[in-house]
């Protein structure tokens, strides 16, 4: 499943970039995220995620891997999580920061891959959820950044 979109944030690129690395605040924007562990600063993180997809509850230990970064410009992350009951999710996310005066546009493109049982009969659930999650994430990021400063 591919999703793309963009957010306009009324803060300059520097502030946005800075926020993205404020793992504590950032993680609070991820729906269902219960906590983050930093494994390697700015490279590897472990998130624990628990969320409901309708009647289905999934709980992942998610490994976040920073694949590429160009400071203040671009960020590529891959996320992988497995729930032994339901299956797993693998996601790649590309964020591009585009300065608009002293505002910032974040263009994001993400590809979500589900497998195991989630990938078969759970698919219609996950697909709908994924769209909602990504939307919620975007909104939270926007309000979080614009709030603190």
């Amino acid at each position, binding site marked *: *499943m591919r999703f793309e979109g963009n957010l306009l944030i009324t803060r300059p690129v520097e502030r946005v970039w800075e926020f993205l690395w404020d793992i504590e605040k950032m993680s609070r924007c991820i729906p269902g995220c219960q906590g983050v562990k930093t494994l390697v600063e700015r490279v590897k993180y472990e998130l624990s995620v628990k969320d409901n997809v309708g009647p289905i509850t999934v709980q992942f230990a998610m490994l976040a891997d920073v694949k590429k970064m160009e400071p203040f410009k671009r960020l590529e992350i891959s996320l992988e999580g497995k729930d*032994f*009951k339901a*299956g*797993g999710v*693998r996601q790649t996310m590309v964020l591009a920061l585009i300065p608009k005066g002293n505002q910032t546009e974040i263009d994001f493109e993400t590809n979500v*891959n589900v*497998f*195991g*049982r989630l*990938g*078969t*009969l759970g*698919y*219609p659930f996950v*697909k709908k959820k994924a769209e909602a999650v990504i939307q919620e994430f975007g909104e939270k990021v926007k309000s979080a950044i614009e709030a603190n400063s």
Partner: protein
Amino acid sequence: MQTNKHAKGRGFSSVGKPAPRIEGTRKVSGKALYTADTLLPDMIWGKVLRSPYPHARIVRIDSSRAKLQPGVMAVLTASDIPNVLTGRRLQDMPMLARDRVRFIGEKVAVVAAQDRDVAEEATQMIEVEYQELPAVFDPLVAITEGAPQLHAELKSYKGLPKLASSINNVYSHDQWRIGDVEQGFRDSDHVFEDTFTTQHVHQSYLEPHSSVLSIDKETGVVHVWVSNKAPYQTKQSLSDAIGVPAAKIVIHVSAIGGDFGGKGALMDLPLCYFLAQRTGRPVRMIMTYSEELMAGNPRHASVIVVKTGVKRDGALVARQVRAFWNGGAYGAMKPIPSVNLPGAVKATGAYRIPNVRIDSYAVYTNSVPCGHFRSPGLVQLAFAGESQMDMIAKSLHVDPLDLRLQNALRDGDPTPSEGKNGMVDVKCREVLESVADSANWKGFKKSPGVGRGLALSYRNVGIGDANARLSVGPDGIVSLLITYADTGTGAHTILCQMIAELLEIPLGQVKLEVGTTDCFRFEAGTGASRVTFVLGQAVLNAVDKLKALIRDWAAAMLGVSAQEIALEKGRLVSKRQRSRSLSLAQVAAAASASGEPLEVESYHEATETPAEGVFTACVAEVSVDTETGQVHLRELNTVHDVATILNPVGHQGQIDGGIIQGVGYALTEEMVMEDGRVVTLNLGEYKIPNIKDLSPLQTTLVRGNAGAAPFQSKEIGESAISQVAPAIANAVYDAVGVRIMDLPITAEKIFRALRDRNPEDDASSREVVPGIV
């Protein structure tokens, strides 16, 4: 729901009668045993773990956690089984992925447990580390240089056909030529080139692939029950796969819950064996329907480029067809030596064309491996070719019927399949005229949103071999022993009707028994509409042998010469003294008393495709809701060129069933793919026709001369489906003026086409400048 004008069997007593299917009583009372109904003592379940990636290297598999699960009896990965590739012809598919997965749904590990849920649970506990590789899903991309190569070791595979060219990811390239197609295009007044695409569709037999296997502890003989219509080929493939001599494998032919071409591959059998070997228990593996839709062997999606040159007057001068089959990750599912699709040879349609060129490419992609489905290849090609015929007719401002009549095949016209001598008894013109008549084609009054479409197709019966053993018991019951499964076509009933006919006995006096693969050496098995043609002939030969044997016995018993014995109404009568006669039972009793029971056997092989084709024409009438794009099929008129009809009920059943499958193919069925993942994974998401979709069907049968099959009959099983989709596509165009060149014809596609329609573009075929080709 239909009127049906089939004539009575010509003066036959059993043949031609609407005899109910002989296994029917078992089926309506729930007693017919399908593979999954074989419940063996101590039998356990096998369940597989499948790849979530379309293309990846397997870095590491850790099944320790799964093995520790209570109730788990075995967990196998590639390292636990022989490194053997399997396939019906081309052997390119591992039983479990070894170092690499090539499609989403490929088997990576298998678990055995007493309880199905425990086995399923355990598969989820196997940890596999993958390193994803670039994947390719579109055959046109896959054939380009630099596209990910799926099988670097292709050349080393057993059963690889001779390739007419060497193209990236192409594992079968078939080609046919008549005349000089390039010259033909140069000689044409108009040259049209159009590209059509078709979707993956699943056979959707309601019985998912099922395998049951048990190893006899004393003898080591492997007993197999499997939803498979080619038992001998399967026995051999299984033997090759598991390294057990074929002589030690017995396949018990079970009832099959629908085939349509999809039930010929090994599927889970080898894994059943390895699990049975590990656990000492009988093992069953039954695919869930999600697994069927993810990893069955569906109909090939395709990209088909049709280029046609015509004279001003509409005469076809040249036709070139290039078909690119999305074969998926493996060629293993295709049964014919060319590892291609048999319909390809009919790509240029039922037309008289002096210059023809066909190229048919089977291409590897990172998607589900495709196999055969009712009239494989022809269904896709008929959609392309017959759609373009209407597009050409539109450009030339002629009636599509007239364009087809003008170019219709005649006796002796060279064709790619029949060669320069062409065919005999060609009924092309007749089926066209008949369908035009029954549908009142010329008299149709067009109303807004309503339209009609015409399509034509033809095919031949398949060749192959078969065995039959015929015996008569002391009770006078004539028993036929065969090892061909009846996949639902009614073939078994027809065979009994033939025997009753020839021995002049009531149908009730004939019994049919389906044996195991121990009965005979080898035979092709069900497919290509061959059963009546090939097995029927074997049965006829057996009957002749039996008659001779009975005559000799009767002659001896009556003390006359064999020439004096006549067979009348199942009795052996002395021609001289008609008062002296014997019943079959008396003769059989005497024979078995003397220790030489009445039993004969015959083997028949058909090596030559008969010169008779089977022609089919169809007119579809649709109404289209121009606001939603919804198509309503108002009526289908279909005409079939037939000879003797052996069983009218069974015959009509093949037509009705073939046609509604064609309707699903045209309008609703699609295995929707996202990056190689099938996302329509249940029968709610994958939409085969429901009883509510049933529309009035008019069938007309045009009688040809002799057919090549017994009692001068012709095949019907596969000839009813191909013309449906193009007829509907042409009808939609006639109704609302939009040309859908990409199946299925969904409401949304029509809606978009209507909205985006550009008034200048009248949706006629794209004309390219003649000469420049």
